[in-house]
């Protein structure tokens, strides 16, 4: 998480709608993105996040609503006239040009003079640590290198807004973690506004300043990762982000995170308790997840940190246990 930016909207999306035939991909979305933040659009496939991003870039024309970028209505404006640049999921590097030509392409379109192009391209490649690959062709680069070229190509134009379409999806696990860090560092260093689309909630939580959770074309919650995790707006959000136990309580529901529940052999003296039997244990190294069949509250999931090196788990399968949680451990939900 970063320090919060001065609240100053760079993008305002009002009532944005997009239909494809009988399907409404984006349904009356209102959103506000602040200058200098790394904003994530999070959701499963088909939730409309990619369509929303493409409308920001100008590749899809909205059927209703409007998009205001830095005070100007950009709703019908074609992509080549927008101060917005995109890093594509497939990187879309031009195969018939070398790296330097790829990165300089946007500057040539602006009519920038050759010496200045060369200087800015060199600077951009330096920033993504690909300075000595300038003469290579995309086919000769690795996946991670290609991504950096795509990033340099977008950044060299100093756009007001940088859009990233599933930036980490094509990378392998180890590379993903490094790139995650790099992207955040770059964004903070350059002071740009990033909007990224992802289906990976861990990614969005660890990178974003704020994020919007989307479902079936609508934004269901906007907030900082902490707000969304601790105070989900609905059962959908609670369930989508991390693991949540959804319990019925006073005409509504209670979202209870697994790490807020204590597991004990005897009845604990917390405000709420319930007895149960351990159904299954998932050992994940740093933590263990217990699946417990309770008396009266259905199946619940509890997680405990594994602090003891010697013992893989504190409890065993089929063991009778007690669950306990404090009065303010959960979050009330009305939908």
């Amino acid at each position, binding site marked *: 998480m970063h320090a919060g930016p001065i609240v100053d909207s760079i993008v305002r999306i009002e009532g944005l709608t997009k239909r494809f035939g009988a399907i409404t991909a984006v349904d009356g979305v209102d959103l506000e993105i602040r200058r200098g933040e790394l904003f994530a659009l999070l959701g499963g496939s088909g939730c409309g996040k990619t369509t929303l991003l493409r409308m920001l870039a100008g590749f899809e024309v909205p059927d209703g609503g409007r998009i205001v970028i830095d005070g100007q209505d950009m709703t019908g404006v074609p992509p080549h006239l927008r101060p917005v640049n995109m890093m594509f999921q497939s990187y*879309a590097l031009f195969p018939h040009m070398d790296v330097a030509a790829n990165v300089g392409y946007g500057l040539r379109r602006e009519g920038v003079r050759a010496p200045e192009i060369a200087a800015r391209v060199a600077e951009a490649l330096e920033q993504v640590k690909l300075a000595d690959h300038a003469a290579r062709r995309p086919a000769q680069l690795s996946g991670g290198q290609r991504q950096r070229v795509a990033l340099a190509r977008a950044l060299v134009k100093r756009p007001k807004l940088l859009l990233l379409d599933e930036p980490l999806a094509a990378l392998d696990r180890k590379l993903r973690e490094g790139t995650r860090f790099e992207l955040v560092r770059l964004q903070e260093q350059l002071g740009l506004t990033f909007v990224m689309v992802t289906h990976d909630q861990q990614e969005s939580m660890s990178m974003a300043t704020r994020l919007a959770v989307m479902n079936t074309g609508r934004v269901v919650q906007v907030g900082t990762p902490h707000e969304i995790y601790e105070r989900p707006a609905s059962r959908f959000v609670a369930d989508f982000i991390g693991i949540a136990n959804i319990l019925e309580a006073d005409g509504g529901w209670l979202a209870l995170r697994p790490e807020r529940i204590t597991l004990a052999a005897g009845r604990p003296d917390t405000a709420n308790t319930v007895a149960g039997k351990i159904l299954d244990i998932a050992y994940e190294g740093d933590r263990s997840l217990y699946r417990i069949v309770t008396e009266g509250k259905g199946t619940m999931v509890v997680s405990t940190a594994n602090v003891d090196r010697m013992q893989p788990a504190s409890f065993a399968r089929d063991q009778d246990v007690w669950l306990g949680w404090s009065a303010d451990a959960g979050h009330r939900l009305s939908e």
Partner: protein
Amino acid sequence: MNGRARFAFTVLAFGYAFLYLPIVLVIVYSFNESRLVTVWAGFSTKWWQALFANEAMLDAAWLSLRIALVSATAAAAIGLAAGYALARAPSSFGRTLFGSLIIAPMVMPEVVMGISMLLLFVGSEQIFGGPDRGFLTIALAHTTFSIAFVAIVVQARLADFDRSLEEAAMDLGATPWVTFRTITLPLIAPAVGSGWLLAFTLSLDDLILTQFVAGAQSQTLPMRVYSSVRLGVDPQINVLATIIVCVAACALILSGWLTRRKV
């Protein structure tokens, strides 16, 4: 080889033999001492010498070559536009109709196209006083039926084209036209080249359509060959055939090389 592989091999061997036997024979007999294609009388290059001294043939060849160059280029340009429209225009009844119009000349019997284009040129002579039947009319006719072939090649290539490259270009500030010029066209150029080669060979070879729209003065190579073979087998034609086969083979190999794509 197992049974299935043997069957496949036999079928292909027979098929290729069927396709190539006449061609091989013609090439072999172009070096035959005697006029006959039934009896081999010894190796000789005399028919080769005769052909290259045959003024009428050479003139006809030159005419055919020039017509082929012009019509292939025109067909490539128009076919490129047509193939692009077919690949990119949103699906609609209009596009289906357009597609039918583009492809129709390819399946139309040449005698029908021949008579119709001749009537067009005669009518235009009546109304506008021109053009005279000859180089121009033949080139126009050849262009018309070649468009379909180029369009199909271009459309197939564009169907495989990665559109995110075009989106990236526009995202970086290129207008649709500049995107086409700097990104799309360079990348589909080999396919267009291949289409050009096909249009070129088709034009060199065309007889029926040419016969209808040519004037009295113009004799293309196929026309000469046709009037010659009606009288029977002619060894100079064998020589010509050999040359054409070699040219065609080179053109085809070149076309294949152009359209090979490193994945």
